[in-house]
């Protein structure tokens, strides 16, 4: 069950011609796929296209009505390989994943797909996770397009343009027998807008029809000599076909006057940012009418030489706005101009930064500087004066030492927190170890307060990244891997590798029942029921099946002492080979989403429900904050007491507590302090329970009154 449900929005996917579609970018993409008669879709979740997978998943019934097959692929490689269905059959297929990490994983399948070429339109919708809010290394997908020669669309970030890019993408793919990548950036995925809907189309050939009438063509298999032929075909046939399609269909756009001393060439995705900069410089209006000519590359690969040279004609200078590095586009354009013997000056990364996101400020400054240098006559008087954005009054105090950093971290009640608290405790006993991290929520452990994990090499590659450290007699390594990473890649690359190479390290599989970091999608070992997928498969069995001898399963990670003792045993046991601990507890976000409404309803219906929450006795707490250093839970916070005798704030648990128990367990395991208590509030208690509680309360109250009579009491007791 994913973090966000699109059950309501999915109804918009039924809109017909003549109606207006309103919604987010990802929904628009799904609608466009249906309008294009797609035959199958697949993909792997990950920001920023996680929600696209969730939409597809929630739309499964609708997809079924059209005979469209939907796969929640095991990995991006699986997703890309799925497109093989379009190699021999005229079926349109689309897969989606985040990039560049997804393309890294998928690149083997993608290269094979690109070599043989496709018959039906094959579209890869890639969520470019770059810039602010990105969770991955900063690279470009562009290089993958270049190396495998698949075409790359980068549409303007508005719904009509994105929908059109889906349509164009399929047609371009079919016209050039080449897979096409459609790149959407983070904010474009979530941008809201509208477009005129068309009727959904049934695929002309469904996957069922293809299965019942199989075809094959040895020439399409990537095997010599066919593979040599493929390379020739790419250059001699597919590329020219793509070029003429792009040119004839006008996929790239031009805005502004025909004649001007300067112009700007930009990736489609940069369009709104460039227009905003021109608006602020007084060179464009609210609708995007511009007095600087723009050449918008909705297709960033291949680049159309003739179109570009036409745009450059009569201009002194042209600025290329290309986000990220290396500047592949500018380099190609530079070579084109040089070859054509042109005198047009090409500007780009000399006015704009080589690396990093092109934010509003970067665009305004870069384009402003370019125009000052090369097209000053275009600038209105006001803008010709120095145009630095006024950041703040000079006397605004500097807050850099005040505002604390706030990186993402474990959620309230996260079951992974106690695993790392236990690891910290074991390290206090046995000293520090080399600890390898992996991709997933558990990577947050590398930040304070845990500071556990020194590397991350790729999804499911945590234990693999510790594989060099297997020297005999040396301290064992600890490596972490999530259940998502385990099924994605880790089963073979990490666990199988460790077994085969007789690795001696400790592997902790952090099993929260979902692919949690990407939004809580179900995976093979998910325990909650799933009507359309086969779940409930045991990680422990899988690990044993690979030949791991020492396996321990912890079914409640909140048991910090047990977690600590198991880790200690793993680090000290005589048993040879990898030591695998599967630490399982359900992702608290998902669990709350599942259980909270049920509990609320049950309370209303008069059923007995126990709701746990933790508390801190503020007069017992001494304000050392040792508990925070082993927790970092958002609900475990601090407050200043109304007491002149106390210097430091004391621990305090706010109302967001879900009663997971980590703080109490940690206080016990680390022998911290007796301040924590758990309050279980029983709603609708049964008769006997109520009587027993009343009986106890009366005796307790009598004892308390007895003591109060015999001593001085200063605190007020409210009834």
């Amino acid at each position, binding site marked *: 069950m994913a973090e966000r449900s699109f059950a309501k929005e999915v109804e918009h996917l039924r809109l017909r011609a003549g109606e207006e579609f309103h919604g987010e970018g990802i929904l628009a993409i799904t609608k466009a796929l249906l309008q294009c008669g797609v035959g199958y879709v697949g993909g792997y979740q990950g920001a920023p296209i996680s929600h696209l997978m969730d939409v597809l998943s929630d739309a499964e019934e609708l997809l079924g009505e059209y005979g469209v097959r939907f796969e929640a692929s095991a990995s991006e490689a699986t997703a890309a390989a799925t497109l093989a269905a379009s190699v021999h059959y005229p079926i349109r297929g689309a897969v989606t994943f985040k990039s560049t990490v997804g393309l890294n994983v998928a690149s083997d399948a993608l290269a094979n797909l690109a070599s043989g070429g496709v018959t039906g339109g094959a579209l890869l919708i890639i969520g470019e996770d770059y810039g602010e809010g990105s969770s991955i290394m900063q690279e470009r997908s562009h290089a993958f397009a270049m190396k495998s020669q698949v075409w790359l669309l980068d549409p303007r970030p508005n719904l009509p343009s994105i929908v059109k890019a889906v349509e164009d993408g399929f047609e371009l793919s079919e016209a050039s027998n080449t897979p096409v990548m459609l790149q959407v950036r983070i904010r474009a995925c979530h941008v809201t807008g509208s477009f005129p809907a068309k009727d959904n189309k049934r695929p002309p050939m469904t996957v069922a029809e293809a299965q019942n009438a199989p075809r094959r063509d040895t020439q399409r298999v990537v095997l010599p000599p066919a593979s040599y032929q493929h390379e020739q075909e790419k250059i001699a046939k597919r590329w020219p076909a793509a070029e003429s399609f792009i040119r004839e269909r006008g996929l790239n756009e031009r805005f502004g006057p025909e004649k001007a001393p300067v112009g700007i060439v930009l990736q489609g995705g940069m369009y709104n940012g460039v227009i905003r900069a021109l608006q602020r410089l007084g060179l464009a209006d609210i609708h995007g009418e511009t007095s600087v000519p723009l050449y918008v590359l909705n297709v960033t690969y291949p680049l159309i030489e003739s179109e570009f040279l036409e745009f450059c004609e009569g201009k002194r200078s042209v600025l290329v706005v290309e986000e990220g590095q290396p500047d592949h586009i500018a380099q190609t354009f530079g070579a084109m101009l040089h070859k054509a013997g042109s005198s047009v000056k090409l500007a780009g990364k000399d006015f704009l930064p080589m690396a990093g996101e092109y934010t509003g400020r970067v665009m305004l400054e870069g384009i402003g500087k370019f125009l000052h240098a090369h097209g000053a006559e275009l600038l209105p008087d006001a803008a010709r004066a120095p145009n630095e954005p006024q950041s703040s009054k000079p006397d605004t105090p500097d807050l850099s030492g005040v505002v604390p950093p706030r990186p993402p971290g474990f959620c309230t009640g996260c079951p992974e927190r106690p695993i790392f608290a236990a690891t910290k405790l074991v390290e206090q006993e046995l000293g520090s170890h080399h600890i390898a991290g992996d991709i997933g929520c558990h990577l947050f452990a590398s930040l304070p307060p845990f500071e556990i994990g020194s590397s991350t090499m790729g999804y499911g590659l945590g234990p693999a990244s510790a594989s060099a450290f297997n020297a005999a007699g040396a301290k064992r390594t600890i490596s972490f891997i999530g259940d998502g990473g385990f099924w994605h890649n880790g089963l073979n690359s990490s666990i199988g590798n460790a077994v085969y190479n007789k690795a001696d390290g400790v592997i902790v599989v952090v099993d929260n029942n979902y692919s949690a970091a990407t939004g809580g999608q179900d995976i093979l070992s998910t325990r909650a029921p799933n009507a359309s997928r086969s779940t409930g498969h045991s990680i422990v069995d899988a690990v044993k099946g690979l030949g791991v001898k020492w396996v321990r399963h912890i079914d409640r990670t909140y048991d910090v002492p047990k977690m600590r003792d198991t880790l200690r045993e793993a680090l000290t046991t005589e048993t040879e080979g990898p030591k695998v601990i599967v630490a399982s507890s359900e992702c608290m976000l998902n669990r709350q989403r599942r259980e909270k409404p049920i509990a609320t309803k049950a309370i209303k219906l008069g059923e007995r429900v126990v709701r746990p929450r933790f508390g801190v006795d503020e007069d017992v707490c001494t304000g050392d904050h040792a508990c925070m250093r082993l927790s970092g839970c958002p609900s475990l916070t601090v407050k200043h007491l109304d007491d002149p005798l106390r210097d430091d704030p004391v621990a305090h648990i706010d109302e967001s507590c879900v009663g997971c128990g980590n703080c109490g367990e940690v206080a016990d395991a680390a022998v911290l302090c007796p301040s924590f208590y758990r309050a*279980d509030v029983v709603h609708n208690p049964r008769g006997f329970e109520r009587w027993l509680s009343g009986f106890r309360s009366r005796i307790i109250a009598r004892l308390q009154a007895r003591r109060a009579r015999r001593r001085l009491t200063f605190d007020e007791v409210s009834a």
Partner: protein
Amino acid sequence: MTARPGEIHSQMAGVIKIAVLALGGQGGGVLSTWIADLARRRGWLAQVTSVAGVAQRTGATIYYIEAAPDKGRAPVFALSPAEGDVDILLAAELMEAGRAIQRGFVTPDRTVLIASSHRAYATAEKTVPGDGLASSEEVATAAAIAAKELVLFDMQKIAEGAGSVISASLFGALGGSGALPFPRSEFEATIRASGRGVEASLSAFADAWARAEEGETSKQGEGAPGTPRVGEPQGPAKALEEWRRLEARAAALPEPARDMAQAGLRKVVDFLDPAYGAEYLDRLDRVLAIDSANRDWALTDMAAKYLANAMVYDDVIRVADLKTRASRFSRIRGEMHVSGEHVLHLTEFMHPRAEEAIGVLPAKWARWIEARPRLFAWIDRRINCGRRVRTDGLFWFGALYLLAGLRRYRRSLRRHEIELEHLERWYALALDTAKRDYALGVEILACRRLIKGYSDTHSRGTSKFDRVLSALEMLDGRADAADWLRRLREAALQDEKGEALEGALKTVKSFA
């Protein structure tokens, strides 16, 4: 097709640019959808963007909205806020407002800053052993300078009061600020149309609207320590009589130290009995004798604070006492919203060690055991384990109740002996030093702040205390000795392991 330069820029004035800075789970998505829906209800065109993904896992997230009146043609909106180009900035937490100012999103020429003054503390603030909380005042001051208009009050409290979430009170504050040209009825209709938790949202919305309309910004220091709660003590007549005598003695103390001494007196009497209060005042008299008004009684004030803290050490008797009090039970019932229809179970997480158990034995017996390490270890193996005890049940309540009853024998118990010995050494050192170097004496007293916690935490605190005071030999006689001791103490509070302290000690060694 070509727009003429110059006249165009004025058209941009029609676009309103709104950024929302929120933490994951604060409803930033709901708020930005409301704002866009509101604009659309008025026939405007609006666009919302956000960055989802891991940034939402408790981290800071930015939502961005642009809206403009519909002139029959689609405008080109930007997808993210730009420095110096934001009209309205909503911050769902004070430090997020600070972050917005830092990033240049709040500028005096145009930005209306609407921020909640409440704090959600970041991990970096919470893990400091001392007080690591960021300064709200500095951000509030900066906000007043950086913004064109500022609406700043505790919107979290308003939301909680209405049983809603902060997105509703932020929406109300936005309306009340008058920054958007839309009538109140449309704001409310937007909330109604969204469908969930409507009544609670509307109530939070209305309260926040009223606050914002008044143009009120919150007084800083809300929730900061103020005067202690003062209520008349209850108890047996004889004890009350003794208390009044003690109270009179404390009231006769010089003014700057009086409040602290009164608070300290209550604390020590609450810990043991009125006689212990008399001991406290006797000790204070010793400091009074060497203090004077022209020093502003700083030494007495400091002694009043830390003597009380030292005399009220955290032993198992105190824990048992605090855990079994009626006031505690009623406080928990209030905090957990327990009414007569509910049943409350209370589970305590205890982990006593041999030290704690032996601490409540008569001093002589305890010393006998302590002299036999093997016996001590044997006891530790029996005692030292985590215990979950139910204090709503009669057995464990009774056990803790009896343990708490040992307080009247405290003076003869081992822990008391240890603590008082330590206290006397420290106190004598401070007073002796103060005669030579007044300021240094004050700082020695203040070092008591380092000792806190239980078990390992307590030993770590004590060891830091010893290490800081170990510098005295090197510092004594120097004119800046007090200043250096203060620096050492502050360093000791910065991190758990005492790395900052080690560094500071090295510095002292280098010149001493």
